[in-house]
């Protein structure tokens, strides 16, 4: 060990020089790989190992915490044959689609607003971001108090008496989506604002000269140029929404058809431990999120490629 280090360093020096000498050891590219290897190994250990380990666990049969033997894909067929999985999947998808759509529309509105020059713009930007700064569990507890019959702030505010938001199907889902939109629309706004600021003012100005109206400018100039930022915002929000746990756990505990996939996974990992079944569920969740994430990344990659092509022209 003590000998290899100086040797490697000795080899590295000539390789770093622009005119490469033949037979002097590692090429620049190979050397880069050597340097990157430790951090890649660390990342693999931290990120990849748990994923692979969960997949291994999911192939075993457990009774509570005790391993009973190899189960093959038994845990997966059990999960896919369980109504509970499908209703959790359904809620998760409904939650994702509605919350991300609402967050996008509201976030876009905020971003367009913040992109204008007006007095108190800095203050507005800061104010809009406050919900995003609050930890999700705390926001969830807060909205639980707001919606719940006790203390019932929303009912008092709107004079709704004892309307039981969290105690009936439908409205319980609405309350959770509402809390999520409140919390993360500012995040979408921030990402879109960053995108908006890269759009040169000349573009909209020349469109104005050409006689384009407000909506035409938004539709034909701003939105197409904002596409990469929109995709990034949607990617982040979709992946995040698919994993929703805290809001559901705090606000309803999964009652009234609001059980999300993550809540279900948590049950089988912590409350009624069955590492095999729990891992199978979390692997299915992982595959779902990975699949949807990859779709976005592909769309994004194409977008960036188009962008580069235009730049080259």
């Amino acid at each position, binding site marked *: 060990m003590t000998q290899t280090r100086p040797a490697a360093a000795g080899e590295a020096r000539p390789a770093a020089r622009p005119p490469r000498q033949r037979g002097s050891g590692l090429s620049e590219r190979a050397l880069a790989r050597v340097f990157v290897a430790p951090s890649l190994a660390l990342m693999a250990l931290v990120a990849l190992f748990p994923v692979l380990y969960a997949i291994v666990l999911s192939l075993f049969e457990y009774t*509570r915490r005790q391993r009973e033997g190899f189960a093959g894909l038994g845990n997966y067929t059990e999960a896919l044959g369980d109504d509970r999985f499908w209703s959790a999947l359904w809620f998760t998808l409904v939650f994702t689609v509605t919350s991300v759509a609402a967050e996008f529309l509201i976030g876009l509105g905020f971003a367009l607003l913040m992109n204008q020059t007006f007095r108190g713009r800095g203050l507005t930007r800061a104010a809009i971001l406050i919900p995003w700064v609050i930890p999700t569990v705390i926001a969830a507890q807060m909205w639980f108090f707001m919606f719940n019959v006790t203390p*019932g702030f929303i009912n008092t505010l709107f004079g709704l008496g004892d309307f039981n938001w969290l105690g009936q199907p439908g409205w319980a889902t609405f309350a959770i989506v509402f809390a999520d939109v409140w919390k993360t629309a500012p995040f979408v706004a921030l990402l879109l604002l960053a995108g908006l600021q890269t759009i040169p003012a000349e573009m909209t100005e020349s469109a104005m000269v050409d006689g384009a109206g407000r909506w035409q400018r938004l539709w034909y100039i701003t939105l197409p140029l904002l596409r990469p930022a929109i995709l990034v915002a949607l990617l982040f929000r979709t992946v995040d929404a698919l994993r929703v746990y805290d809001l559901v756990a705090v606000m*309803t505990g999964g*009652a009234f058809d609001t059980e999300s996939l993550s809540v279900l996974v948590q049950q089988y990992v912590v409350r*009624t431990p069955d590492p095999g079944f729990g891992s199978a569920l979390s692997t299915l969740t992982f595959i779902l999120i990975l699949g949807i994430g990859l779709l976005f990344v592909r769309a994004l990659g194409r977008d960036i490629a188009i962008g580069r092509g235009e730049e080259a022209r």
Partner: protein
Amino acid sequence: MRKPTRWLMAGGAFALIMAACTPGGDDDGGDGDGGTGGGGELVWAIGGAEAQPGGVHQQVAELWNEENPDNPVRIELLPEAADQQREQQALELQSEGSTFDVLGMDVIWTGEYAENGWLESLEDVRGEIEDASIPGAFESATWGGELWAAPYNTNAGLLYYRTDLVDTPPTTWDQLCQTATTAGAGAGIGGLIGQGAQYEGFVVNWLEYYWSAGGELFNEDQSEVLFDTDIAAQATQFMADAISGGCYAPGYNTAQEEEARNEFQQGNTVFMRNWPYVYSLIEEDTASPANGNFAIAPLPTFEGDGTISALGGFNNAVSAFSDNIDAAKDFVVWAATNEEAQTMLATEGSVPPTMASVYDQLADDPVMSLLGQILPDAKPRPPAPSWNEISVEMQRALFPAVNGQGDVQEAVEQVRTVLEDAIG
């Protein structure tokens, strides 16, 4: 010259880390010889508010330490929520770690821990503990006919009612609902609040209706299912009618202990089903409309005879992987049978003790004297290894039925299947 020493040091540190991570004790773990009988600190893994510095569990530990300086007890504070406490203990015990000597165990974990081989049997000290303890609490510490833990503190549901709105507390559930609806309507407030959200507390509340109608879940040693679907349907239907008919206060189906307390304390309900801890909180809150206008009574039944309440509380068990099993055993027996320690629970912490004889001395305390009446008839939830699974499935079957989203008959059939699968 330097390098080898450095390598040696690194190697030494690594070996130390490995040693620290490797569970102590022998491989077969949990043989009776683990205890050396010598001195050494005992670690008591227990959670909740009373385990925090200044809490009554600390005071009990200090009392023990005065008498037993050779084996002082130190509390390892676990999280507040029961699920998390269980997870912390399970992580340690699953790896056969010897860090915890005494385990503060919720009454429903006994079977799970015992079947996993995590506990040292207390059969050799059974007589002492059985003589001192309330029967229900003792039952919750047994599994498969064997004693696995020593009862420590208990808990039972009480009926809180507004004395300015109700003359005499109801003895049947139907009476309660009548009074709740009429008195509630008269005062413009809700009827009964309890723990109706979908969680463990819902099962506890449901069981109090089911048991009070004469139902049972299992036979004594949990080898046979005695679940009666007719009685279960009666209990479930009663709750469903109470929600739709306005006997339960609005928000019943989203309330846990604290939401229920808030409603009653703010004067929003006539009745409340809750644990004893609420009493002193309302007594101290002079701004509460219920302050000075409330009293406690045993929970009603369907027929009006006697009362039944679900037991809560904690038992102390000895870890099978402890390095100091004998001393740990002495401690759990002492905590269950020492009059001073058990009295301290009630006087210093408002935590109901499990020792039957101390209730005679606590007759002046309204909560403890009522508990003294209720506890002999209180029932523990079956401490089966699969209780958590059973409870989750019962919630999934019964909660929608109670809330008018599912068929009552189907729900109780489903519970029967769950119970049969659990012991099958």
